[in-house]
């Protein structure tokens, strides 16, 4: 369990990181907290030619409020966001979900944007980004662009980021809106079998689900109750195309979407 040889570039400025990325393209990989990537390197599942470390870049290190948006730089560790004093007031859903991301030890290294870039279908941060309708700020040597969460994730561990782009930051709308989060895993800190986030919308509630489809999925529900709500949730549960694995069955996942979904929708609508 030793990685194959690779070059390591500790970027001193963002331009340097972008330049190396532009040059190396698909053979390069950004490393931030390394909580997923390092394990993949050691197991030789991934063997990039070059690793570009962005953790020393001051321009990526901050959490900022810009208007109604909270912008979280690519160098911000999960533990730092969890410790951010405004978290509960500005991003209550993140405050609920982030403690479910890994463990204390992994959060102290892992970054917010790294988890989103990795796009694990069970991860909490991509789910929250999707539920809140946040944006991913991408940057290459040539251009900058922002991609809405629903257009960013494209499949299992797949995103619409191009090989010459890195995630500079993500932005999430600040809101004191009603929200709820619940997750089921075999053990505390495991990859979610099902994670559900619910956020109040103007005319109902948005329910986002992780761990079931290839990527976080969301659906807006109008105000429904009783059998109508159950039917809508059942439809959503089947739409997600759940699968079996060693930890759960497709049916169990659908059950959780139906049951937890109902609880969260009611909780948010109350």
């Amino acid at each position, binding site marked *: 369990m030793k990685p194959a040889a690779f070059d390591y570039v500790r970027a001193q400025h963002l331009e340097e990181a972008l330049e190396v990325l532009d040059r190396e393209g698909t053979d390069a990989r950004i490393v931030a907290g390394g909580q997923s990537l390092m394990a993949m390197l050691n197991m030789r599942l991934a063997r990039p030619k070059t690793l570009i470390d962005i953790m020393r870049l001051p321009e990526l290190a901050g959490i900022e409020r810009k208007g109604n948006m909270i912008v979280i730089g690519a160098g911000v560790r999960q533990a730092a966001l969890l410790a951010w004093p405004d978290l509960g007031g500005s991003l209550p859903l993140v405050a609920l979900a982030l403690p479910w991301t890994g463990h204390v030890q992994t959060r102290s290294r892992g970054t917010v944007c790294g988890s989103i870039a990795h796009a694990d279908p069970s991860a909490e941060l991509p789910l929250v980004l999707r539920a809140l309708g946040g944006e991913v700020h991408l940057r290459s040597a040539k251009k900058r662009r922002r991609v809405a969460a629903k257009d960013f994730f494209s499949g299992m561990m797949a995103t619409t980021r191009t090989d010459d782009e890195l995630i500079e930051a993500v932005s999430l709308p600040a809101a004191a809106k009603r929200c709820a989060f619940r997750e089921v895993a075999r053990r505390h800190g495991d990859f979610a079998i099902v994670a559900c986030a619910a956020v109040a919308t103007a005319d109902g509630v948005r329910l986002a689900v992780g761990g079931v489809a290839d990527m976080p999925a969301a659906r807006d529900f109008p105000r429904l109750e009783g059998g109508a709500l159950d039917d809508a949730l059942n439809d959503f549960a089947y739409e997600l195309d759940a699968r079996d*694995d060693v930890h759960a069955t497709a049916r169990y996942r659908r059950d959780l979407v139906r049951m937890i979904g109902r609880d969260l929708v009611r909780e948010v609508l109350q």
Partner: protein
Amino acid sequence: MAEAAGHAFASREVSGNKESGSPWIGQSIPRVEDSALLTGRGRFIDDLGVHPGTLHAAILRSPHAHADIVSIETSAAKRAQGVVAVLDGDDVKALTSSLVVGVKAPVECWPIAVGRVRYVGEPVAVVVATDRYLAEDAVDLIEVQYRARPAVIDPLAALRADAPVLHDGFGGNVASDRTFRYGNPEQAFASAAHRISIDIRYPRNSCTPIETYGLVADYDPGEDAYDVLANFQGPFSIHAVLSRALKVPGNRLRLRTPPDSGGSFGVKQGIFPYIVLIAAAARAAGRPVKWIEDRLEHLTASVSATNRATTLHAAVADDGRIHALDWDQIEDCGAHLRAPEPATLYRMHGNLTGAYDIRHLAVRNRVVVTNKTPTGLNRGFGGPQVYFALERLVQRIAVELGLDPLDVITRNLVAADAFPYRTASGALLDSGNYQEAIQRGVDEGKLAELKSRRDAARAQGRLYGIGFTAVVEPSVSNMGYITTVLTPAERRKAGPKNGAQATATVAIDPVGSVSVHVASVPQGQGHRTVLSQVVADVFGLTPGDVRVNTEIDTAKDAWSIASGNYASRFAPAVAGTAKLAAERIAVKLARVAASQLNTEADDIVFAGGQVRSKRNPDNKVSFSRVAGLSHWSPGALPDGIGQTIRETVFWSPPELTAPDDDDQINSSLCHGFIFDFCGVEIDRTTLQTRIDRYVTMHDCGTILHPAMVDGQIRGGFAQAVGAALYEEYAYGPDGSFLTGTFADYLLPTTAEIPDPFILHMQTPSPVTPLGSKGVGEGNCMSTPVCIANAVADALGVKDITLPLVPAKLAQAVRGAEPAPPAGRASGSVKKQSGDRRLHGEGEAVVSAPAERVWAMLLDPETLRAVIPGCHSVQKISDTHFRADVTIGIGPVKGRYRADVTLSDLDPPHAVTLGGSAEGALGFGGGEGRITLLPTGNGGTSIRYVYEAAIGGKVASIGGRLLDGAARVIIGQFFAALARQAGGGAADSSPSSLLLKLRRWFGGPR
């Protein structure tokens, strides 16, 4: 550091107690091991220095469960930077002989695949290089061609006549088939009011120590001798297996163990094939070779407990009294029957009636081989498998006869006045009072209160149940029990094998300080602490005066085949032997002191660092002065003393005789008793089992160190909770190993383990020197079935399969699932149970006509463009292409050799595309039917259905993501095909095109 400081303080404090005369035994003194461990000064195998020039090994392992090795190409690996040697099975075979197999059959067992692989993870080649990184680089350069064979995974399937056969020397896959009969079971069943039965499957799991296997091997050609340092734990009967395999006499294999071990739980015994493998590599390389197993290797291919299929019948009276048992056990030992297997099956042979007085017993024991990792020692060793069947059956008897389960237990217990009690199959239950233990457990564990909790929970509609178990915990294995697998005639031919020899040496230096050495190879339990207590009591010293060394060096130390750390033998056998060795010196020292103090030897007492007259306490001499005399002035010793410098005692209990001609076997020396009960609740939403309260009552005889005993109970309990709720070495039906990381092999953490309520009573054993019995394995035997019984009570179901994966309970708790809404397909294509093949279907619409799409499918250039990550395509025939591809999901990328074949051609309407790929990350194969349908506007709709299977490393690591990953890759193929065919996508960026295609594909299917 607080602990270390506390140590010094506590020592002074307890030494004050000592003056008042209470023995050290029975006190929870601080562990002498801990200050090194807590300050990072432990000396584990990977911390120890090696000789300059030591090389490092990495192992290429099989991705297939069952396949012939067609060829192994190592030339590129041999030329790679830093590589000194590369060995395959034939090379190892040339340097060694086959490992012995525990049954009489013409079957070979090598530490590396020779011509054929039989389980995922089986070594195929070893690379020795100047460092581990370079060794792993070179492993990637070895090219192996396999020809897959069908695999057999399930032990019952292995018995079928048409099952794939693993070894030609066994009859089918059956390595052993023995029947036993004790008493008159036929008559007992014929006359019984009820015949109550249970079928169970006990899963595969392991206790997974935090430290993996590690060893350094060297070969000295001048001496024709091997020197091996390995974190092996015993039993040292394996030493004979190793020297035979390495083709040297035993005195030319020096086997040493490091001072500290990062845990074993039996598992480290399984390192022995790697000792042969790495020693052979060291011989080939001409330099010492070090190998540290990594976690993926450990989980995939180290060793596992056995899984077992059992059918158990009981002949039962109306009141629940059990008159006879009929066992049918099918033991799955994996791909090879490695020493000491099939010991897991026979370890419990004397205890098949558990804690119960059942005189009639029928047994059929079959041992089968399957395409899974070979099995070996594991905490509990046969106990969990036996008690899961027996105690589930006792619960079923209660349910079926409408009795209280605790009444069924108590009605069948061995009577308190019946000890020593000989069980039907020959175990001698040495001491106990099971009735009192249960009564105290019920009272002090507050069973009545737990029942109220259950009733209250049930009144609220919650799923709450209570489970019970009563088990006998055997310890100190009879080395002869394994020969019960042989017939009496075979045993007579092979010669006797029995006993449980323990060895201990006590030595005194010129200044009278005491050293102890035992051949026990502790794995973190605290043997050194307990031995210092035991010996300090004999000499009237403090534990701090006694230094204990537990390292083993077979070239220098006293040892026997029974040496080592297994079968819970430390407290009953090893610690007792140290007491005997100390006493042997103390008897002589008493005579020396008596002559100096002008009194009789029986007037001498050792206390407070002095040797005194009992009658006249002022008549005394310091211990060190008496003890050192043999060094300074041997001529001054009384006649006949000889020396008082060093004594080694070899102790083997006479009760451990070989199996007799009726197959009666006293499989273990002593027998503790455990009574457990627990309350569990199953959450109605998550279906997770929560242990509300767990009570465990132990009688392990005399307790030497109460805190360590509780530590053993807590540790065993934690591993048992893992076995009950979380842990399984899972295999796909094709033999793919699915739990190669701790993200998939789920160990409970501190958040999942409740604190058990521990109770004790102490009935000393009459057959051990200190009255102690083993305690380390009991909860691994009692707890899984206790939890299962509680869950059965909560859900009112008969069949409980471990681990209790919540999803598996959905049907039992909730019944049928709500149907999908009208117009929506029911989700995933229906799979047969256990089918791990990936299925899918989809559709892509392109603007080109069907004829053009068809032409593209048959064109190597188009295939090169559309196969994801394709570097080159070679046309073998019109319908067979060979490709070199890099396939990846996100950062996970691997390079594969792929073969693509086209069949069932129906131009230009349909074709079947078959493919297989093999590379460093594993292999895959699949088949898809592609149908081309013209659309109204001159385009073509490409419809596809596929079935694929993926195995090897990527399946072991990424099981959770595999299905989705396959879908992404197949999606990539059709996206590229559509792009190539001018799929009408204006934006040529592959990912956004993929996104568009995903919308087409991603709909209901």
